[in-house]
């Protein structure tokens, strides 16, 4: 090889762009992206949406009825017994909080890591966070015996001169989850402002009300240089604040269990392990929703198969982390030499709840491992099935942690078996009704993809894009061939 060709090879190898698949497929222009996303909030409501919305509303009704029944009759309508004081309500709470974490992971953590593929999914993932956290907040509220006194958990000066106990992780939950909801809402809304302005500008003059509403919520956004500069700074700061927040919120949720002295609960790995599980289950839910949404809303060019594959890799990674935590817990339980600790884990695998344990193990440990195979990682039907298994598995993980540790602990005389009642199950099903009601409203009225952000990662956004052909044709041709990603 002569020196000249070597230099050429080095230069060629050094350009480094050849294996990047474009983030937006189908050679779309800026305008086409706007059209594709915005149209769903502008067109006449499709019949299918009404169908789905009615179904979700039935779920919501079930929720309201079961909660009303619960309030009237008391928490005794649930299947809780004396050793198992926490059942479905706390399981569902942790489940929904966990779901909500993927949204912040996608919007904040992947932002800090400069993962541009997040732009296609962050909006709906954040919406999912908000609605999942609403579902989650429901459960700590209603699982108390006297719901009307729940404001006592807030540190408000009062004539009794009584304050909450700041050593209780249940109180930390109040702060953690409410702060999490607030910050997620602000983060989501800040991201929405440029897109709401786009919708405002597209509203025909005849639709006065729509125009007014959008003008109000877009806060007079004009897309000026100064706007963008401040906006990006604010977004970065919010991302940097939301990242420790998301880790701490689920850690605090894990403290509910880990600070106790119950065998099976008291273990120091819970904080990072719960966070990994939350990301795992949250990505499972994002996957379930995105697979359907991209099909129904024709977003295949924006939420491409490459996006889905990357999400599957994260599911594989976090699923493996969760599996590793299972092994660690089991090993240390044996290694500790504490008989209660050892029994707690033997009881999980072979006791009366062994069925739940093995559902959890197979769904969480086994199914994500199929994603080692690239073909399966890129198979939409397969990933849809796995994403549902992931959520089943993660629900059972919380069930196993909560119930199997409680139903048999130190004193054999207080061993019991927990069977949920119809009200338990109905409340859980109803929470899905609440979730999908909110999510469908979101899909109907708000752009489900962050239009402004997707445009930023498109090849045309690069200042050098038009240098090739002058009019952009030359470069556009390369985009079509999947070679050019933006830099000359």
């Amino acid at each position: 090889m002569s020196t000249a060709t070597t230099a050429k090879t080095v230069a060629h190898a050094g350009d480094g762009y050849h294996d990047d698949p474009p983030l937006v497929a189908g050679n779309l222009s800026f305008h086409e992206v706007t059209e594709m996303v915005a149209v769903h909030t502008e067109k006449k409501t499709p019949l299918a949406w009404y169908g789905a919305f009615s179904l979700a509303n039935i779920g919501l009704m079930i929720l309201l009825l079961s909660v009303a029944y619960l309030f009237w009759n008391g928490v005794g309508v649930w299947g809780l017994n004396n050793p198992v004081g926490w059942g479905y309500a706390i399981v569902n709470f942790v489940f929904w909080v966990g779901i909500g974490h993927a949204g912040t992971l996608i919007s904040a953590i992947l932002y800090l890591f400069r993962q541009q593929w997040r732009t296609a999914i962050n909006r709906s993932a954040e919406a999912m966070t908000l609605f999942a956290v609403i579902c989650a907040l429901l459960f700590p509220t209603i699982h108390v015996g006297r719901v009307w006194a729940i404001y006592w958990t807030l540190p408000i000066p009062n004539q009794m001169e009584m304050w909450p106990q700041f050593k209780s992780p249940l109180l930390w939950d109040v702060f953690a989850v409410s702060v999490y909801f607030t910050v997620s809402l602000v983060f989501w809304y800040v991201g929405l402002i440029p897109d709401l302005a786009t919708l405002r500008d597209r509203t025909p003059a005849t639709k006065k009300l729509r125009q007014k509403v959008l003008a109000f919520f877009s806060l007079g956004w004009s897309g000026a240089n100064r706007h963008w500069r401040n906006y990006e700074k604010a977004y970065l700061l919010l991302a940097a604040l939301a990242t420790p927040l998301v880790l701490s919120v689920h850690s605090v949720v894990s403290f509910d269990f880990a600070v106790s002295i119950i065998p099976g609960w008291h273990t120091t790995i819970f904080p990072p392990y719960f966070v990994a599980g939350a990301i795992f289950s949250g990505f499972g839910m994002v996957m379930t929703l995105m697979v359907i949404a991209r099909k129904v809303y024709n977003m295949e060019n924006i939420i491409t198969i490459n996006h889905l594959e990357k999400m599957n890799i994260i599911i594989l990674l976090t699923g493996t982390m969760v599996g590793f935590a299972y092994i660690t817990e089991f090993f240390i339980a044996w290694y500790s030499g504490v008989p209660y600790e050892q029994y707690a884990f033997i009881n999980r695998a072979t006791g009366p709840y062994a069925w739940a344990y093995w559902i959890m193990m197979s769904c969480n440990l086994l199914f994500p491992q199929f994603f080692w195979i690239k073909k399966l990682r890129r198979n939409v039907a397969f990933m849809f099935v796995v994403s549902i298994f992931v959520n089943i598995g993660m629900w059972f993980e919380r069930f196993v942690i909560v119930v199997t540790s409680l139903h048999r602990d130190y004193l054999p005389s207080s061993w019991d078996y927990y069977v949920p009642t119809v009200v338990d199950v109905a409340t859980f099903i109803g929470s899905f009704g609440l979730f999908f009601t909110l999510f469908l409203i979101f899909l109907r009225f708000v752009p489900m993809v962050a239009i402004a952000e997707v445009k930023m990662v498109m090849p045309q956004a690069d200042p050098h894009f038009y240098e090739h052909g002058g009019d952009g044709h030359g470069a556009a041709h390369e985009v079509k061939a999947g070679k050019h990603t933006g830099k000359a």
Partner: protein
Amino acid sequence: MAKTVRRSSPLTWLADPLQPTEATGAAFRFTGDMRWWLVPVLIGAALLVVSLVGWAVDPRQFYFSYLVGWVFCVSLALGALYFVVIQHLTKARWSVVVRRIPEALTWAFPILALLAIPILIGMHDLFHWTHHELIDPESPAYDPVLAGKAPYLNVPFFIGRLVFYFAVWTLVAYRLYTRSIRQDVTGDPEIPALQRKTSAWGLALMAVTTAFASYDLLMSLDPHWFSTIFGVYFFGGAFLAAFAFITLSAILLQRGGMLGRTVTAEHYHDLGKFMFGFTVFWAYIAFSQYMLIWYGNLPEETVWYRHRLEHGWEAHSAVLLFGHFVIPFWALISRTAKRIPALMAFMSVWVLVLHWFDYHWIAMPVLHPEQAGFHWLDFTCWLGLFALTFGLCFYRLSRHSLVPERDPYLARSIEFVNA
């Protein structure tokens, strides 16, 4: 120019598995003289010889000091290996210009495996569970808890596990290091995909081996105590220290007139962000472990912290809290600070020292529960092993290109800007 790379002779293989390679660009070359690596190696060897005197005088102290220094070096190499693996898996571009430094560091494993011999010799002094009378039911010293752990904590299995860990780490390091050097020479376009493949299974294996190595080498010093998060704690500190090592090495090389302008303030900024992030991660794990044990206050767990909160060790715990978390947190939080090489160099040294202090804090209260402090052997063993590791890392750097010069993302990494 050569089309392929050649293996070193068996003797030098331990220090560097490949023969020196030629570089295409002068900017990417090590231009310093051999003092760069020879002086640290000689200092390291001298300090270890001095430590041998300590071994003759006080073998138990030597073994503990040596273990801390050795685990410190192992954790550095492990952290570097995690860095390389994660950069490949995430197809990171920004880090290409600094990747050769951790790659060179990971080849410390073969030498470190040899340097484990004193620990194996001193096992009886280091690890309480090696005492036979504890697991003998007839003996008055019989300890049923330790006897229950004997299937795991026994000498042959311990050594077998250690061999396995080093085999895994060396294998992963060998593949990633030699392939990266091969890429400099041949520019084989298949290499990035191969590196990713090794990194994928490598990461899974490394996670398991790192956790179990931490249980074996540090947690089992106090064999009654247990904590499920301990492996993550070990990893958090190791990964943080690797960032400090990379930053420090890059700054030293640039001060020595090497690396040209390939490594810029942008890269230091990113390294600083990771140092900041993992300072917080370490604190998060350390706090979780402490708070959960303090809160539950179960006697079999609490005693570990009790030993670290009395007889002077409480001062060490406080130093750890402020030195390992509060000070680096505030020092590294601002954007400006992360872009000043002098400050980053200082913080790297700071982090490396505190990382050693962390392991010292874990191990030493087992030996001296009644009196906190340092022994001169703590410093000679640690600095001796570190100087040796450092010198050999620079020896490898001197034989090959300082950056992966034909990595497909090199150009992007050089022009990278924190937007």
